[in-house]
């Protein structure tokens, strides 16, 4: 039963991944523009040279053949970026490793902050704190992150006089291991806080509403009427049940790893995946755009699969269907 459910879910997703790759390929190629190497506004380039470049990138072939070339090269590991002729997969992997700490710390901050604020707001519904946190959430959602980033950078630099840009302080190669590590941690603080802001605002609202829903349930009332103290009621009986929907969110976080945070990475000069994708789009670097897109699609499918599995494990009612 269980096994059948999983194999069906898996085959469906493989078919879906194939469909996505075709549609994504078509959309990217049908968008206007050409790789910046084929620059028709460069007066020094002759039509022969442009034809030569188009041929080398297979841009003169029909779309279905270009798709075949892309898949072939991707599978063989021969896929090269138009921009610098470097293999695409190692390039993405390198940037992924740069983005990973930012993603990890950002997520940590989101989950750490959202639960206490959300639970407290739910327990004290209607209180001053509740209204204040609601206001704060909407303020954070409405303020654009680039604005907050500028304010934060200028504030820290002017008041504390320490560097905040990039992944590490420039020119610190000779320092001891521990200070280099701490330097890396420090450079994570501002960008991860800023990329977490939106997440905190949304997730704490979500925690609050989940808690509110659970608090009104019969079993919570039963627990209270049994004479249990308030903390046990809230944290054991209510919170555990309220947590169930959040299990699915773990799976859905996977694709966010390759999305990166374009704006934060751009402002903080962070050499991450978001910037790689953004620059690839500006330069119409098709192999990089397509591959990133495809990986994101795969991770989304994998993420939904994982959350299905987790849900089935956590909630026996799902398995029976």
């Amino acid at each position: 039963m269980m096994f059948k459910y999983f194999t069906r879910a898996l085959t469906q997703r493989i078919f879906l991944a194939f469909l996505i790759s075709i549609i994504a390929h078509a959309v990217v190629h049908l968008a206007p523009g050409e790789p910046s190497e084929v620059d028709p506004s460069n007066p020094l380039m002759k039509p022969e040279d442009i034809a030569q470049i188009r041929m080398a990138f297979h841009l003169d072939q029909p779309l279905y053949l270009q798709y075949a070339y892309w898949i072939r090269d991707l599978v063989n590991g021969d896929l090269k970026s138009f921009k610098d002729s470097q293999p695409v997969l190692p390039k993405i992997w390198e940037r992924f490793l740069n983005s990973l700490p930012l993603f990890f710390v950002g997520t940590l901050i989101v989950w750490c902050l959202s639960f206490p604020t959300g639970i407290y707001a739910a327990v004290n519904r209607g209180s001053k704190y509740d209204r204040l946190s609601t206001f704060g959430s909407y303020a954070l959602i409405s303020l654009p992150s680039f604005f907050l980033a500028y304010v934060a950078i200028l504030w820290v630099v002017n008041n504390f006089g320490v560097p905040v840009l990039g992944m590490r302080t420039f020119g610190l190669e000779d320092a001891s291991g521990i200070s280099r590590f701490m330097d890396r941690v420090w450079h994570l603080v501002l960008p991860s806080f800023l990329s977490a802001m939106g997440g905190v605002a949304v997730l704490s609202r979500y925690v609050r509403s989940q808690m509110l829903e659970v608090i009104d349930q019969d079993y919570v009332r039963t627990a209270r009427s049994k004479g249990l103290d308030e903390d046990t009621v809230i944290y054991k009986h209510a919170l555990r049940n309220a947590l169930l929907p959040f299990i699915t969110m773990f799976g859905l976080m996977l694709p966010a790893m390759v999305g990166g945070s374009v704006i934060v990475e751009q402002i903080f000069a962070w050499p991450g995946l978001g910037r790689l994708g953004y620059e690839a789009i500006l330069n119409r670097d098709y192999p990089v755009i397509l591959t990133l897109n495809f990986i994101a699609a795969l991770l989304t499918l994998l993420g939904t699969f994982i959350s299905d599995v987790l849900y089935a494990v956590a909630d026996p009612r799902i398995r029976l269907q």
Partner: protein
Amino acid sequence: MILKNALLFIPFLVFLGLLQSYLWVPTYGDQTTAGDGRLEKFISAISGDARLLNPIVAADSASGFVVSHVFDSLLEIDENLRLKPHLAKEYKVSCLATIVVGEGFSPESLLQKISPHLTSEASEIRVLEPSTLIRLIDPDGPGPLKEQEVKVTRPNRIEFSLDDVDPSFFEKSLKVLGAEYGQEVTGISAVSVSGKISEGLISIATALAPITEIRPVIDFDLRKDVTFHDGEAFDASDVKFTYEAIMDVRNLSPRRSDFEPIESIHIRDSHSVRVIYKRPFAPAIFVWSYMGILPEHLLNSVALDKEMDARGISGTARDGFGVRASKFNRSPIGTGAFKFTDWKTDESISLARNQDYFDGPPEYKELHVRIIPDSVAREVEFKAGAVDTYLADPHQVARYLKDPAYQPFTSLGLGYTYIGYNLRREPFQDVRVRRALGMAINIDEIIDYVLYGEGQRITGPYPIQTDWYNHDVLPEAYDPEKALDLLKEAGFHKNSEGFLEKNGQELRFNLISNNGNPQRKAILTIAQNSWRKLGIRCDTRLLEWAVFLKDYVNTGDFDAVVLGWGLSELDPDLYQIWHSSQTGPQQLNFVGYKNNEVDNLIENLREEYSRTRQVKMARNLHSLIAKDQPYTFLYVGRRTQVVDRKIVMVKRNESGSVVDYEKLRPTPTGNLNYFFNRWRKLEAIPDL
């Protein structure tokens, strides 16, 4: 409750862990004053990462900046934009002139007949034996797929060596020989190796072997004291290899067209090279002033084979593997003043001083380029002292002008912005209309308000800081009333609604530009408004760049455009933008400008090797084009590079000891980095 406490303590611990790292980080103060050699490091900030650190494939400005410090070219441009020797000790331009010995002539009799009519003295005369020429051609025009090999057999020819390039060397002789001379030469025959012989093929083959040929020659004498950063000596084979790598189609070099006029390169001995050109083309020499020379021993086929084996590249991928795909482009080795040391993708590129540089080592020990995409972030790092220089945005410039801690350097750019009119359409065929449209726009106001004053008016097609620019051509003054008079002279009158019309046809057209350029967008609105005041209805539209080029500019389907050109400061050639043969689809004279006088001048200028005559011709061209006003020439932008004021230029005496410091200065044409190798940072702002 454990869970409750955990929910409070975990966030607390996370924040504590993150924030305590502040205590470990060096402050800007530590970084900028610490004795660990900060003064010997030059740190520059740029917005985008380099792509390929290889002179033959570098196309972006970041790669160009790094490449210019790591590689050397044979020649260099001096302060005043004149060529001077660099890797080449000396160079000499001469010329080979050949004429076919036609039917009914022997070499001796032909020579006797033409020698009184030759226009220059020949230093050497040779008779060439009949020869076979093998070329790849494509009978259907450009397109790399349909190439065919063609063999052309040529008869005896006489070759003259000339000390100067004289494109008209045979002109009088050919007149004496008569018009039928060319037709009677039957020795030229085409043999196609891989296909059928067609009419087209024969005409191409005949063009490959013309009756007379003038082929300029440049002889380079190379320096013998130059080594690459890996210790290998630099020699003639490196020059030849660099040329071959550019022409190799696998490398997709954006410089290929620049080197197309070269027929062949010969190694005469280990340190002398001869370059033979296909035809007189004066600008062709400039390529040697910017093309860095690659180390052959690291990139030839043996080295590439080794690299492919090491990287496990096999099968079809091997065929396409050229210099462009090599790892060399991420750790380049050249002969330049700086050696490449490190490249952290999208973070920084680091170079170190080349102590053995033949031109004397630079003052700075290290040169770093930091990649900071955001302009506010660049300014923050610069003001904190973590960066020594960056290119300030126009709105930031004012902050640096009065601050004594910084030295801003403003220079004019090489590109200009213009409004181009489609000369194939009414009413733009009338020069009075074009003049009137230009006069109606207050260009000074555009410079003041759109560019924050960071621009200058121009009147013609050349960069204002070069000798080619004709300063006698004065900009047309802003005068809407005179503009209206000109339009009335051209037959327009105001109708009842207040709009201009001619023969019942209202004067109405569209003005388009590309999306994403706020300055062009502003010009669009200003022009529309200025013309509206005269009674002209102008519809404006912004289009995505690719669509703009494909559907409007390349097909000629527009009335007027706002666009810009980027130019070279060296080369006075205007062929692609202004010659009447370049008005076809996808060509750059898309406004359809045709003027016989201009055509002739452009053609002659390409074949002119004397600088004084080049200058005269270029200035003449400038005034002719300015008179016709096919464009309303608007402005050239200024750019401002700010530098820490602690940085100065070192003056050394002959024995190498420091005698004095000077203020940084740009060259007369605005190149600040020209003296970079003499720059040094002092501990305090000097009193200069």
